[in-house]
């Protein structure tokens, strides 16, 4: 659409320069104020940056000049060796990634279900609420290691017909059991923060209980708990590796195997880098989305 066509139509009425007779120019006072503000901010930011750099720099110097630095470097940061073992670690990371995808989805669904049961108020659901509470308390409270052992080694020991003894499947189930307890609590806290008047409004509009959850409560609840949910996702990526006790090799186990061979810890560092290569972009992306949506929604930003 060309400039000329837009003129004079109602569509264009929001465009400030047209409405208010020529583009607005900030006054001298405002210009001075902005410069002063920018200057002060820049100065403070500079002080903050310098002081952080100073602290970090000092730490770095202490580190590098310490008597044991060479030993430490050779033990933890022997890059040549690290790159040598990297392929094995990345191969192991395949396990983490696959399990995270599978377990992640199931954890989200099961966690959501448990959270919904726990936050329900109908007296008819009391027994389910009770069970859900026990579920969360127990599976959150016992070491995941034990859950994995019980499911991964215990179920095959039962020798039930038609039940798998595939460690990958059983291990994934164990991970799902544990993490859904955690995630249920996170989602629950999100649901609790949605003010009851929001439900009241939705129900008054004729939305059913489910529709209210789906369109009004959960969108708000989940947005609010995105950071802790991300916590759990990142932890999940790492913890899927716990099923290595069943004999599956994940990134950390791959690193451990290498370390056991060479007595050098660089493989662990490589594993960490592989994890970070996935989790940091994920976190940054989610964070940006969250911030944008909060900024769009909330006025009164700067107080």
């Amino acid at each position, binding site marked *: 659409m060309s400039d000329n066509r837009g003129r004079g139509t109602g569509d264009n*009425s929001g465009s400030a320069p047209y409405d208010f007779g020529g583009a607005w120019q900030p006054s001298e006072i405002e210009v001075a104020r902005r410069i002063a503000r920018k200057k002060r901010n820049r100065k403070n930011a500079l002080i903050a940056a310098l002081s952080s750099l100073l602290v970090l720099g000092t730490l770095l110097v202490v580190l590098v000049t310490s008597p044991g630095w060479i030993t430490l470097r050779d033990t933890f940061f022997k890059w040549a060796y690290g790159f040598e073992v990297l392929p094995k670690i990345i191969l192991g990371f395949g396990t983490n990634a696959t399990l995270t995808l599978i377990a992640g989805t199931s954890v989200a669904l099961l966690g959501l279900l448990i959270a919904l049961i726990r936050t329900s108020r109908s007296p008819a659901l009391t027994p389910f609420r009770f069970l859900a509470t026990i579920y969360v308390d127990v599976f959150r409270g016992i070491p995941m290691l034990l859950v994995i052992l019980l499911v991964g080694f215990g179920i095959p020991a039962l020798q039930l017909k038609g039940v798998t003894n595939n460690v990958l499947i059983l291990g994934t189930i164990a991970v799902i059991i544990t993490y859904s307890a955690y995630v249920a609590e996170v989602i629950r806290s999100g649901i609790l923060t949605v003010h009851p008047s929001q439900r*009241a409004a939705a129900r008054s509009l004729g*939305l059913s209980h489910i529709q209210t959850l789906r369109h009004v409560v959960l*969108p708000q609840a989940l947005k609010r708990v995105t950071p802790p949910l991300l916590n759990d996702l990142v932890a999940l990526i790492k913890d899927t590796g716990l099923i290595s006790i069943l004999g599956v090799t994940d990134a950390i186990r791959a690193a451990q195997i290498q370390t056991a061979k060479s007595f050098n810890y660089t493989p662990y560092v490589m594993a960490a880098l592989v994890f970070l290569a996935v989790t940091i972009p994920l976190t940054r992306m989610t964070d940006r989305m969250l911030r944008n949506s909060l900024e769009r929604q909330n006025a009164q930003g700067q107080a």
Partner: protein
Amino acid sequence: MNGPSMNGSGMSTPVLRVEKLRKSFGDEIVLQDITFSVPEHTATVFIGASGSGKSTLLRCINLLEQVDDGTIKLDGEDISAADVNPDEVRKKLGMVFQAFNLFPHMTVLENIILAPTRVQGIREEEAIAEAFKLLERFGLRDKADQYPDRLSGGQQQRVAIIRSLARNPRLLLLDEITSALDPVLVNEVLSTVRDLKGEGMTMVLATHEMGFAKQVANEVCFLHQGKILEWGPPEVILENPKLSETREFIKRVHDAGRL
């Protein structure tokens, strides 16, 4: 005593019939012995001091609060019965809250079309078209894609009103819909409500706006400490009340420069 709108006998079933309703929060009795009827195509307006129980009464009718006693009948059906499905009941009721209760995560437009598309199953394009008509009428066309938090108080209230109007309910419950509006918009809303009444809508309103009461009400009920103390046509209650409490209230309203 039959309460407001039951003076004449042999009338057809009223849209709403509340009988001996009672509601308390803990020790505090908020509503007591509330009995009234709202015949079809009429508007009943509740007036009364702050805290007298107006909002609570509307919430009870909407089944958002469980009453302690008494019955509420909608089109003759007892909606306060134990086995009633509130969802079905609420499909027939529209409500605007005193505190707007807009959905902060949805734009103005999304707020408005949520119920039509999800509850009534209207096609989205239709619902949007309908919504824009209402937005236009209330001067909010250019705010359709804003989030509620960015609107002024009056704009938010208008959106809440539009949201409830978009549903064509059997009975409309309006809780101080004009309180955050500027006088010009009060007029606008007033005429909207009048139009609605003209179209046959049945309404229950709570308001502090005596002018509003006067122009819209078929019957005005004066709520005082949880009881309906006096009721009747607006001319009577607002200009010639019998009880001293009512007189006192009306007098102070006049003093406040309203009406």
